[in-house]
């Protein structure tokens, strides 16, 4: 059951382009993690749901990693997303010994979740070598690497650290390699093709495997755990929409072998085809074949979303932060505690703060706005406090002598005198928030970050820049806007340079 949260209602009233639910057809919310394969699978799921016609679909794609997307499923923010058996056992159930889907299903049932049978392919770590190297040295399995100690390797940082990565693999097979370097996964293929390294770690469905002259080495001694793709869903969804659930099982379970998934990943990753087009061609629609993604078309909508994120969160931060700053200036002891609290908030990495919001407020705009507002507090509170405590004491004393009591003194004298400092704090927050708001997309908050995380997933610099450059321009525009606002909001007498006339 998905209770109506008061915060969600407020957000609905606040947010400009809030979608009004069309008719009363049930909704299936499809989620995904933020990497290519997850996007493609989620898009396939979404299209199958749409084609079944029982419900309409809301796409909540690119929800960061397992932690975020699974929290979203657990709290009912999404109904279904693609997952892997190894991840379910290790990260969700935290029982690595559970390996069969049947055993997982029993345990997930207690949590109100269901899981399909495997879709067909495995996405697990694997080792790869250039095809030329493989044929020259006769390498077919990982065991074959033994005795070739002169080979060099480049491994992803994650693979190098994890016990189910290189350290465990090395022990399991008794491997020795001449040199092991750290290299981002996406760059490793180029290094391999260029002959800079001999062995790299890959995911077994990487799109590059379909295109490059690369040979996978078989895990002949069964080290890597099973990462069979499945769909993980809420039981309520499967029970509420049985026809849709049946369609998903019928059209996807056992239908996606490794070669197929690798090809789909290559279409999205290397050919830059939109996820929707890749999904639709797999499902036999064949629509929009060859069409390339066009971030330009999404920009106006994303700009509005981003502006709404920045505007609403900044407004909230001002409404909360200025009074907190005043309070801190009035009650010095409380003030120190308060400033420390706001400061600690700032030390939480923005992404972690966003993740903390999920159990409390779910995913989407509301938690993103709350996290952004909290993040924008520090400069505003601090500058309001600093502006008020550094006022000329003679001017403050004079206000008391002139008969201005607390509120009048604050509104007529202290805040106007401190306005330059306070506005500087708000300006700092605004510019920072434009940047931080790009992270909102990780919890489905929308905005320019949507392009950035899609671009990161695809290792596509153009898409990343299509999000990053407008964000930078928006930061500049907001800076300019505040310069203009300075002229309006700062009292004239504080701007006039002393033009003493005698």
């Amino acid at each position, binding site marked *: 059951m998905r209770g109506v949260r008061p915060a969600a209602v407020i957000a609905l009233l606040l947010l400009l382009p809030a979608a009004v639910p069309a008719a009363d057809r049930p909704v299936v919310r499809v989620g995904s993690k933020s990497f290519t394969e997850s996007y493609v699978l989620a898009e396939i799921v979404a299209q199958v749901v749409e084609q079944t016609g029982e419900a309409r679909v809301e796409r909540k794609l690119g929800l960061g990693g397992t932690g975020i997307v699974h929290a979203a499923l657990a709290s009912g923010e999404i109904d279904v997303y693609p997952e892997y058996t190894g991840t379910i056992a290790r990260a969700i159930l935290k029982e690595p010994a559970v390996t069969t889907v049947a055993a997982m299903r029993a345990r997930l049932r207690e949590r109100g979740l269901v899981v399909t049978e495997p879709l067909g392919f495995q996405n697990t770590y694997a080792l790869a070598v250039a095809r030329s190297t493989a044929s020259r040295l006769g390498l077919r399995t990982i065991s074959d690497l033994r005795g070739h100690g002169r080979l060099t390797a480049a491994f992803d940082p994650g693979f190098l650290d994890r016990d189910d990565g290189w350290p465990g693999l090395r022990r399991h097979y008794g491997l020795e390699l001449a040199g092991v370097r750290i290299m981002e996964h996406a760059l490793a293929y180029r290094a391999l093709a260029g002959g800079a390294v001999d062995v790299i770690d890959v995911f077994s469905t990487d799109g590059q495997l379909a295109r490059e002259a690369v040979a996978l080495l078989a895990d002949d001694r069964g080290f890597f755990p099973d990462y069979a793709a499945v769909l993980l869903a809420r039981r309520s969804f499967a029970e509420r929409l049985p026809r849709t659930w049946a369609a998903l099982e019928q059209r996807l379970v056992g239908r996606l072998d490794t070669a197929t998934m690798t090809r789909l990943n290559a279409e999205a990753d290397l050919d830059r085809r939109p996820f929707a087009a890749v999904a639709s061609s797999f499902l036999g629609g064949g629509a929009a074949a060859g069409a390339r993604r066009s971030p330009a078309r999404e920009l106006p909508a994303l700009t509005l979303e981003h502006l709404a994120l920045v505007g609403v969160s900044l407004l909230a931060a001002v409404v909360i932060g200025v009074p907190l700053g005043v309070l801190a200036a009035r009650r010095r002891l409380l003030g120190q505690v308060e400033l420390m609290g706001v400061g600690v908030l700032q030390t939480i990495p923005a992404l972690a703060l966003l993740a903390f919001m999920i159990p409390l407020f779910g995913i989407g705009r509301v938690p993103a706005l709350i996290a952004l507002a909290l993040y924008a507090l520090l400069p505003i509170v601090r500058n309001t406090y600093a502006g008020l405590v550094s006022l000329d004491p003679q001017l403050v004393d004079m206000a008391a002598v002139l008969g201005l009591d607390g509120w009048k003194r604050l509104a*007529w004298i202290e805040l106007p005198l401190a306005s330059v400092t306070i506005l500087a704090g708000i300006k700092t927050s605004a510019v920072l928030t434009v940047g931080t708001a790009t992270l909102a997309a990780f919890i489905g908050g929308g905005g320019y970050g949507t392009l950035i995380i899609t671009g990161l997933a695809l290792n596509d610099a153009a898409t990343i820049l299509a999000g990053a450059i407008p964000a930078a321009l928006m930061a500049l525009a907001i800076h300019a806007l505040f310069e203009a606002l300075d002229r309006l909001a700062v009292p004239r007498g504080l701007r006039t340079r002393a033009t003493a006339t005698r």
Partner: protein
Amino acid sequence: MDGLRPAHRLSAVIVVSGVTKRFGGRAALDGVSLTVEAGTTHVLLGGSGSGKSTLLRLVLGLAQPDAGEVVVDGVRVTPASRAEIQRRIGYVVQEGALYPHLTAAENVALPARARGWPAERTEARVTALAGLVELERAWLDRHPAQLSGGQRQRVGLMRALALDPPVLLLDEPLGALDPITRAELQTQLVRIFRELGKTVVLVTHDVREAFVFGRTITLLEGGRVVQQGTFADLARRPATPLVTEFLRAQAPPPEMTAYL
């Protein structure tokens, strides 16, 4: 000097008795007593660090004495009575302490506005005060930064007089002015004090100002009263050699006087 002022019923408006005020370990004021009669001008004379400004702050209730008491108009100054005391006092400080974000007129109108006067009444009062300090009304629409030091000081005085308080406290009101403006304003202040019959306490380090303004003078040094009396008392019957030294230190050398 007495002959210049209208005769008033002599009654003590400000009574300071045995006041001590410490900041950290240092006594800014150490057992100071003085009495100011209604309608007279009393000068607190002393060098920097003598405690004269601190004494004004105690009279205003902006600080509390560690020992002794201050009574204004028969009411003891405490945090509780402070607001009531401040209503009877106009306060002028060096450079005026005008609010830079308000125009001169808005600065003057501030005490009236705080008490909810109707706009016409406030405006009439501002115009009348401009006449009193001989400041053209047009200047009042400017911000303090656009006024000269003398004009700012006049605006500060107007603001202190806005509610027509019986008592005026002035802390180095002429301190930041050039000699010519200073002389003009000095003459003007003497006239205004006489016309309005206010009870005035004026803080200065300038012996000449003390001579011009003060019916009675308290000479302070290191937080203690060195001598109290008229200028003639201090000059002719100095309590200690320090008094003579203080008075002479600021006198022009005789060779110079010969030229003037």
